[in-house]
Every structure is written in structure tokens, then in C-alpha cells.
């Protein structure tokens, strides 16, 4: 046996750790991993533990299922040890606050703690898994990085923002042309004061729901219809969206004019809290919400929703969507808000995907369309120009059945130009 250990350290370590992980998987399958989709015939038990780690559920949490809870003897030791280390982690965060991180990013910190506790909000994992995987892959290649799953969201966050850096640079260049078409004569105000006064207005709107007519003046009650505008229309516009909007930024040819707060796999749930913008003075990364506080826009374009197809219902989605629109209205009282219908997928994708199909997209689009009041919130649907006769994304326009090929973003831009609102 001693001989064996000496000759086969890798074999032995893998066998022992594999057995251990399987055991954790089996134990956890009755408790912490209960909700995971799992078929004994198709996957080994240790996949449960690994899936748990990738979702932020630590393996030792499975121990609670076998009398290792905090009140039992061996478990209490473990609990103490865990508590101790968490206490340290919390001790760090006040420093962060002292450094002047505004309230919004505190909410972000809160969600990080949630991650550690294993209470990951649904959206957090699904599509982001791979990113976490890749960032830790980097550490492993260097040979130094341990498999520190808790740290993962941090690392991947860094990567994401690296990807979006370009966007905010683009945003900066156009910063100079700010408020060219703006009607607000008061110009720039103190952000804080701004948000304060606006929140009351927003509150009224929220209370009034969609029917805000009662609070508004007669002039505000006018509805408007679309007309063709020129490209300088985008000079005071901002686009918020997922990878499709990233594509519009990269290939639509309006990146010099408009600001883009867009990121791959962005959802309505993190649309305002992601750090996709840059503070013009300090150059620090700021959230979309903060960016909307700092700068006044004439138009806000939203296209979000495809990444959310797999989570929640249309109702839960719309609940959040309405909140986001209300918040934008609050921060940008004079802006025209365009809620864009989600771009569809091709017929091929539609036929083979249970989640990302056009039935689900149409369902969400109908709900989004209801937000329009044709006074200051307008619904536009680019599917009118990028779909074929059967209402699927034109297969010629895409390689991956979901995203437009670069040269076809022009169609989208033209569509936007033909659907301008001038008040």
C-alpha cells in the first residue's frame, strides 16, 4: 500500500477526491441539490457537487443533511469555523463603503454575499456559468489559481467589464455632443438633487400606473406618430440592451453619436445595476443607473428580454421591465423611451428550441408593447424589417440563428431612423 501511494499519487488523489465528491453529491441530492435536474442514469453524482459549486452552493452545505447542523457536536465546530471566516469577510466591506462607494453598488455587494450563502438569484447562474468556468480556467493554466469558486463571480465580473470597456469608451467620445437635441433648458444639474426631485415625479407615475393622464398637463396628452429622421437624431440617444445591441454598437455605424450601455447576456434584472458606463471625470466604472443620473438624454432605446426567456414568466419579467422603465422615466423625465420588441430567431431555431423560440418572444413582445402610451413611451418592433414571410428572423441575415451578421445591422439602423418621434 505504501508502495502504491508513492507510485501513484495522481491516481490515488483523483480516486479519493472523486469518491468524496460523489459522496457529497449523493448526500446533497437529498438536501441542497434537491432542486437540480438530475438523472442517475445520465450523470454521475459528483456532477451535482460541481454544479453546486458553479452556482455558489458550497459542498459543506450538503453536510447539514446528515446531522452536521450548527447545533450538533462536529457540525458546530464546522459552523463556527465558517462563521469566523465570514466575519472577516464582512469586516472588509465597511472599508469599501468608507471609500465612497455609492448606495447602488452596495446593493451589488449584497448580492455577492447572497452568492456566498448559496442563495443565487435565478438569473445569476444559467447563462453566466460558462464565464465563471472560463475565468477560473485562466487561473488553472497559470498553475497558481486554486479552485476558489466563491471568488469566481469577481473574476468573471472583471472580464465582463473588460469586454464592455470599449462600449464606454465609445460613450465617452460622444459625451461631448451631449444634449444637442435636448429640450431641457436647465442643462446639467447636481446628480443628487436631480434624482431627488425626480423621484417624486416618478413616484406619482408609478402610483398612477400606465394611465398617467391625470397628473399631466393638457399639452402632455398629445400623442405622436413616427416619422423619418436623420442620423443626428441619435446624438442624444442611449441604447441599453444585450448582445444584439452590442452588435448594433459595433456594426450599426452610430457608435460615435449615441451612448451604448450594452453587454452580452444583459437582462432586465441587471440592466440598471451593471457597471457598463464610465464616469466622465474620474474615468471610474459606474452603473447604468448612475450614468443616467449624470447625463440627460433625449431618447432611451431598450431591447432586452431574450436572455430572460428561460427564467420566470412573462408576468415576472414585465414586473421588472415596468420597474426599469419607471426608473428611467424618473431619471430622464424629458426623454422619449423606446421599448423595442425582442428580435426574433430563425425558423430553424424556433423549431428546435424549447426556450429560445418565437412563440416565447412574441409573448413577451405583446406584453412589452402594452407599455407604450405613444406620448413618451413608444413601442417599436424591428422584426418588421428583419423577418421573413413567416415571421421568423430571415435566415440569410444570420449565421447562428440569433444574431444579425454585421452587415445587416444597417437594416436595424434604417428602421430606427424611420421610426423617430419628434416632439
Amino acid at each position: 500500500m505504501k508502495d502504491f501511494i508513492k507510485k501513484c499519487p495522481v491516481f490515488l488523489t483523483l480516486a479519493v477526491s472523486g469518491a468524496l465528491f460523489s459522496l457529497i453529491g449523493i448526500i446533497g441530492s437529498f438536501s441542497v441539490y434537491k432542486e437540480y435536474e438530475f438523472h442517475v442514469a445520465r450523470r454521475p453524482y459528483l456532477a451535482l457537487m460541481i454544479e453546486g459549486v458553479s452556482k455558489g452552493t458550497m459542498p459543506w452545505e450538503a453536510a447539514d443533511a446528515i446531522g452536521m447542523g450548527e447545533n450538533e457536536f462536529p457540525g458546530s465546530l464546522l459552523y463556527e469555523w465558517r462563521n469566523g471566516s465570514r466575519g472577516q469577510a464582512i469586516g472588509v466591506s465597511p472599508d469599501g463603503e468608507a471609500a465612497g462607494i455609492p448606495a447602488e453598488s452596495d446593493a451589488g455587494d449584497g448580492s455577492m454575499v447572497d452568492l456566498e450563502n448559496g442563495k443565487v438569484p435565478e438569473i445569476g447562474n444559467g447563462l453566466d456559468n460558462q464565464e465563471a468556468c472560463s475565468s477560473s480556467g485562466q487561473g488553472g493554466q497559470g498553475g497558481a489559481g486554486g479552485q476558489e469558486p466563491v471568488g469566481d463571480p469577481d473574476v468573471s465580473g472583471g472580464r465582463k467589464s473588460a469586454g464592455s470597456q470599449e462600449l464606454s469608451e465609445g460613450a465617452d467620445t460622444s459625451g461631448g455632443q451631449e444634449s444637442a437635441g435636448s429640450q431641457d433648458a436647465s442643462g446639467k444639474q447636481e446628480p443628487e438633487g436631480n434624482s431627488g426631485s425626480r423621484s417624486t415625479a416618478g413616484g406619482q407615475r408609478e402610483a398612477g400606473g400606465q394611465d398617467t393622464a391625470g397628473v399631466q398637463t393638457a399639452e402632455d396628452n398629445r400623442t405622436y406618430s413616427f416619422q423619418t429622421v436623420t442620423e443626428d437624431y441619435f446624438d442624444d440617444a442611449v441604447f441599453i440592451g444585450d448582445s444584439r445591441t452590442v452588435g448594433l454598437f459595433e456594426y450599426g455605424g452610430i457608435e460615435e453619436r449615441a451612448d451604448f450601455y450594452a453587454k452580452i447576456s444583459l437582462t432586465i434584472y441587471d440592466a440598471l445595476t451593471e457597471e457598463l458606463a464610465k464616469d466622465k471625470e474620474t474615468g471610474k466604472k459606474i452603473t447604468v443607473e448612475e450614468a443616467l443620473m449624470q447625463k440627460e438624454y433625449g431618447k432611451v432605446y431598450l431591447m432586452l428580454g431574450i436572455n430572460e426567456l428561460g427564467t420566470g414568466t412573462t408576468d415576472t419579467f414585465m414586473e421588472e421591465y415596468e420597474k426599469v422603465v419607471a426608473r428611467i422615466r424618473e431619471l430622464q423625465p424629458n426623454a422619449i423611451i423606446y421599448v423595442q420588441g425582442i428580435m426574433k430567431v430563425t425558423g430553424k431555431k424556433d423549431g428546435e428550441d424549447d426556450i429560445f423560440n418565437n412563440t416565447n418572444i412574441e409573448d413577451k413582445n405583446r406584453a412589452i408593447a402594452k407599455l407604450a402610451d405613444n406620448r413618451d413611451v413608444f413601442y417599436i418592433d424591428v422584426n418588421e424589417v428583419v423577418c421573413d414571410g413567416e415571421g421568423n428572423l430571415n435566415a440569410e441575415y444570420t449565421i447562428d440563428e440569433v444574431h444579425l451578421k454585421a452587415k445587416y445591422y444597417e437594416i436595424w439602423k434604417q428602421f430606427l431612423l424611420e421610426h423617430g418621434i419628434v416632439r
Partner: protein
Amino acid sequence: MVIFSSLEFIFRFFPAFLAVYYITPKKYREWALLLGSIVFYAMGEPYYVLLLLVAVWLNYFFAKKIYSCRDTRRGRKCRKDRVVAALVMDIGLLAAFKLLGAFLGSAILPLGLSFFLFKMISFQIDTYRGEMVQKPGFRQTAVYFVMFPQLVSGPIMRFHEGGFQEEEREYSWEKLEEGLQYFVAGLGTKVLLADRLAILWKDIHMIGYESISTPLAWLGAAGYSMELYFDFWGYSLMASGICVMLGYPFIENFRHPYASRSVSEFWRRWHMTLGSFFRDYVYIPLGGSREGMAVTMRNLLAVWLLTGLWHGGSLNFILWGLSLFALIAIEKLALGKLFGKFPFVGRFFVLLVIPVTWVIFAVTDLRELGMYLGRMFPFAGGGIAVNPRDIIKYLGMYWYYLLAGVIWCIPAVSQFLKKHRRNPAVVLLTVLVFWLSVYCVVSMENNPFAYLKF
């Protein structure tokens, strides 16, 4: 299941098989391997497994007949007739399926067909050439044809390399450990590098080739060159690692090809078992390079056309084979001497032209291929809606994989690890790479939309 980097293989089939294999008395282990391999193949191809078994039996039957010619009076003629019959069968089967595949789609092709048929062809010719030390038994022959580590994608081991006719196979803990380390190295190479770089290539495709900037076109070509290498090298390492764990020799399939000093050398170091197959069974029988430049060129052309066709039926593969033929011919005629004198120039040449040949290999649609090459060499202008800053974005997203890839292409790195493989740090690294790879595999399986983030 038949993919070595899948969870079912790593945590179900292989451990179970390994336990059974080592519990089985030495005398019967070949039977265990034979049975295990048939089960393995049947999981991937429940119907074609019958075809495999018939092919195994027929080839054994023919080889026995060829071998027994040595006892007849007209041995030479007898052997020749019989080997021709065997080859007609094997090559006919291969050609028939490749044709079917070309018309009906490649889904119709049995798993690993070209690999086990190439083994069979080499087995027949070796028997014909009298290279068998003794009359091969059914068990050995069948194990050689179907042994699961090599069944699906090679390496195309030769019968004599497998040590089938030696007195007794040696098994040891050291070999088990060594094989496992090769396996983990291969797993990491495939999962942590190849599968990540594959996403870059997919991204570029998604943009549309007409809209990528020239630097991005080259970055894509470099990324794809690495992806292809790591995918196949990683696979070969896993396959050979399993062989070593089972007491069989390590079959080398790649010898750091990107460190070559000429295209000819590159192809002696890339997919070596295929290269040596064509060399021994096509190039040399045709006369090799001994009968003047004209014949040499003809033979080279034959080899490269066959190599092209072997990889796929569409026109771009023929184009790819021809481009390699042209490069190797030019080296033979002119550049070779220059590269001999200035190895640096040769290395540079390899790193410049091989990625271009891989682009021809990768893009099966000729119009799209033209567009991609047009972006790599934008002499005629062109390009629609090109974003000149796209390179910054993709470098930002992939630089660490590309950098790790470049480092992993350097021969000294893996040689160093191999030399110090018993060092505790390397042992730890192996364990880490293993679990990290598994972590990535789980995330991908768990999230079928991994490639699709919108």
C-alpha cells in the same frame, strides 16, 4: 459516452472498465479489453457495431488466408491475389460510406470508420509484406482493431507497435500513473484550451466573414490553428494515455508541430500516424522520391489528394490538399535549402502559411472561404461594415487563452512537465487541471446554451 472528455466516460465507463480489467487475470485481459471495446462502441453505435464485428471477422479471415500463403508453392502470387481482395473490400467499404456521407450528410458515417478501416488496411498489407512475427490469433487481431481508446479517432497504431506478439504484457502501477497523467494533460488541453478557443472561431463566423477586420481575420486563423491542434492533440493524449494505463505502448501522434522549420516537417509532426500511413502504404509503394523529380511530384500529389479526401468530401478539402502539395513541392524544389541555412526563416514561414491552410480546411463553403481569404489579404479592398476596432474586443476576450495556447505550443514546456512529472508540484497541478476540466465540462453540459449568450 464515446467522447473521452464526457462525464459518462470519465466517471462511469472508464473506472468500471479499469476495475474489471485489472481484476481479470492477466491471461484473459485481452478478452476483457475486446468485450469492453465492443460495449463501448455499441453505446455510441448500437447498429453499426454489427458492421464493425463483421469487418473484424472478415479482415481476420483474409489476413489468415494471406498469412497461410507462405506454405503454398506460389506464395507471392497467392499473397498478392488475396491482399488485393482484402483491400478491395476495405477500401470499397470506406469509399462507399464516404460517398453516402457526401450525399446524405456525414451523420450516416459509422463512428471511427476511417480509423478502424485504416488499421485493417495496414494489417492486411503488413501481413502481405511478411511483417508478422507469427500467425496472428483472432483475439489479438480483434483487440488491435477495436481497442476502444483508438477506435473512434485513432491514433492509427500499427499492429507491430502494439506489442501483441510479445511473450507477456507488462503491467505496473508506474504505467497506470503515467498513463493517467497523459490522460489528464490531454483532457486539459481539449477542455481548457481547445473548447474555449472554439468560441472565438464561432464568434467570428457569427459576425460574417465579409465584416471582419484584417487583424481579426488573422487572429481567427491563429486561434483556429491552435484550437484544431489542441483538440486533436488533446484527444490523442487521452487515447494514448488510456493505452498506457492498460499496459499498451504510448503512440505518439503529434510532436509539437508548430515548432517546425518547414511545412514538410510540420506534416511529419502533425497527425503522425496518418502521415506515416500514407508514407508507408501510398508514397513509398509508388516509388517515393527515388525515381526522379517528376515521379516524386506525382507521388506527393497522390498522397495529398488522398489526405484531402480523407478529411472530407467537399471541394475545399481537395483545395486544402492541393495547397499543401504546392507548399511542400515548393520547399522540395527551392525553399528547402534556404530553410536549412536559416531555420528562423523556415519557422516564420510555417507560422505564416499553416494558419492560411487551416482556414481553407475550416471553411467548407467556397464563397465564404473566398471572403475570409479576402479579409486576410485585403489587396482588392472589400469588406462590408467592418469595425476596425473589433480586434481589440476579441483580443480582450481571448488573450489569455491565446497566450496559454502559445506557451503550450512550445516543446520545452511540456517536456519540462513530463520530465518532472513525479514532482509534487506537477502532481498537484495534474490534479487541479483534472478537476478544473471536469468543472468546465459540468458547466457546459449543465448549460447547453453555453455558446449562446445573447
